[in-house]
């Protein structure tokens, strides 16, 4: 009995670390430009596809090759996000209508999904982990669950250092608090925002690559990841990476519990109820300071 719960717990935390990473990649773009990038889910799936492509090209990679391929995948997705970021920010600079990103980021998500469907068809891709299952508490846990936890901690540490210790990171984290004051202070606003998009690409690309064996890599699986990442973001508090790191696993465990106990078709409902519940009880999240409420 307890073993079943241990499985749920470990897998939930692993999957939840993926949600935490998605939330962190949301955060950095959000604090610099106010944009919530709906296409982030597809970027994540693309990262997973790179893992599939790597196997298709090189066969099952050795550990060293696999390790080297992580930054490669991260950089490829970062470039894709740089292009997306450039195009998303473009209309914002010449129009007073500042909500076009709602549509453009969703449209990019639809476009990527459509291309994946054309290239790949409706079926999900399977990626086999290069690591054997890890024995833990007398059961065998697929390694990517544990790797995802490690990756979340890694990116958390990197982001905390970058955003508070370096001047560039500090500027990125401050920009959206007052973009005009930022401009007046001579900050290169557009360039910093693009940098944030790129960074979010590094995070999400590496996540997709590492977690590939435990996620659904399909043309229509992105929305569910965006949604769960967003739930983690809200529970943790928007703009708080610490919150994301803690909330992600909570969401993951809840989702696993729902799948095991009530059945997969209710997983969406459970996520939604968690989201609604949190927003009703504590709209600013656990670590958030800027409230979702405007009254």
């Amino acid at each position, binding site marked *: 009995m307890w073993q079943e719960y241990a499985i749920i717990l470990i897998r939930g935390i692993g999957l939840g670390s993926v949600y935490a990473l998605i939330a962190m990649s949301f955060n950095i773009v959000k604090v610099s430009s106010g944009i919530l990038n709906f296409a982030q889910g597809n970027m994540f799936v693309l990262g997973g596809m790179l893992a599939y492509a790597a196997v298709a090209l090189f066969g099952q990679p050795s550990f060293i090759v696999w390790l080297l391929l992580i930054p490669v995948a991260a950089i490829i997705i970062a470039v894709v996000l740089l292009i997306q970021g450039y195009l998303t920010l473009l209309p914002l600079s010449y129009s007073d209508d500042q909500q076009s990103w709602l549509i453009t980021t969703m449209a990019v998500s639809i476009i990527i999904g459509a291309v994946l469907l054309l290239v790949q068809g409706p079926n999900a891709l399977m990626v086999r982990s290069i690591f054997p299952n890890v024995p833990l508490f007398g059961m065998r846990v697929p390694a990517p669950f544990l790797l995802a936890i490690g990756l979340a901690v890694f990116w958390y540490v990197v982001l905390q250092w970058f955003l508070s210790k370096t001047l560039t990171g500090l500027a990125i984290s401050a920009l959206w608090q*007052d973009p005009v*004051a930022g401009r007046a*202070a*001579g*900050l290169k606003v557009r360039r910093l925002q693009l940098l944030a998009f790129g960074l979010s690409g590094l995070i999400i690309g590496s996540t997709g690559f590492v977690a590939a064996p435990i996620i659904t890599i399909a043309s229509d699986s992105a929305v569910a990841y965006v949604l769960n990442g967003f739930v983690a973001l809200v529970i943790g508090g928007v703009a708080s990476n610490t919150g994301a790191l803690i909330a992600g696993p909570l969401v993951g465990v809840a989702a696993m519990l729902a799948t095991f106990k009530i059945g997969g078709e209710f997983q969406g409902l459970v996520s939604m109820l968690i989201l609604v519940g949190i927003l009703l009880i504590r709209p600013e999240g656990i670590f958030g300071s*800027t409230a979702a409420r405007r009254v």
Partner: protein
Amino acid sequence: MLEVSGLCAGYGRLPVLRDVSFSAAEGEILLIAGENGAGKTTLLQTIGGLIKPTAGSIRFEGRDVTGATPEDLVPRGLRLVLDGHRVFPELSVFDNIRLGAVASKTGKVAFDTAVDQIFEVFPILKQKANDKARSLSGGQQQMLTLSQAFVSQPKVLLCDEPSLGLAMALMPPIMNFLRSWAKSGTAVVIVEQHVQLALAVAARGLLMQRGSVVFDGTADEFAAETGIIAAPH
């Protein structure tokens, strides 16, 4: 230091500035006064690079900088401080000051010296260095925005209504700070409605009306023209 000639600008197609010319020399404080909507803020924002001029020229240290953006202007030493004591509310006081040095590439030593000077003039900022900027009062936030500009060591400082929303008793330390700043060689251009306060430290005064400069003279001439007497010395 700063020469503006024939400057025209506006929002969209709505003209606000009409043929504005004036100059500011290093080490002096220039006051710009005028009614609500006369174009004072637009003038500062155009010089500071936030609004593109439609005609005329802006010269800074003898070089043409018309239409340059703050990204270019701040590293060269021209810095605008917006009205309404705008800080980055979620950052600490010290991080707000640090951000002031990003664009200007102020060296470590110069930065530390500048911070020491600031903490000497505004000890409250030192006391609250690790607090979030949103916890400061309006007056302290105004001190902070000026400090943020100070560490970038500009040669020309444009300061938009430093008194807006502040208790008047808070103004003397801020005005005195600007005065000693100017003495170090910076040209300070301030827009201020509390003309009395500003005239006490300004060398010259400029009066704007509906987008044009209608008077330009020394502080004393300005006082005589407008009938406003500088705050008691």
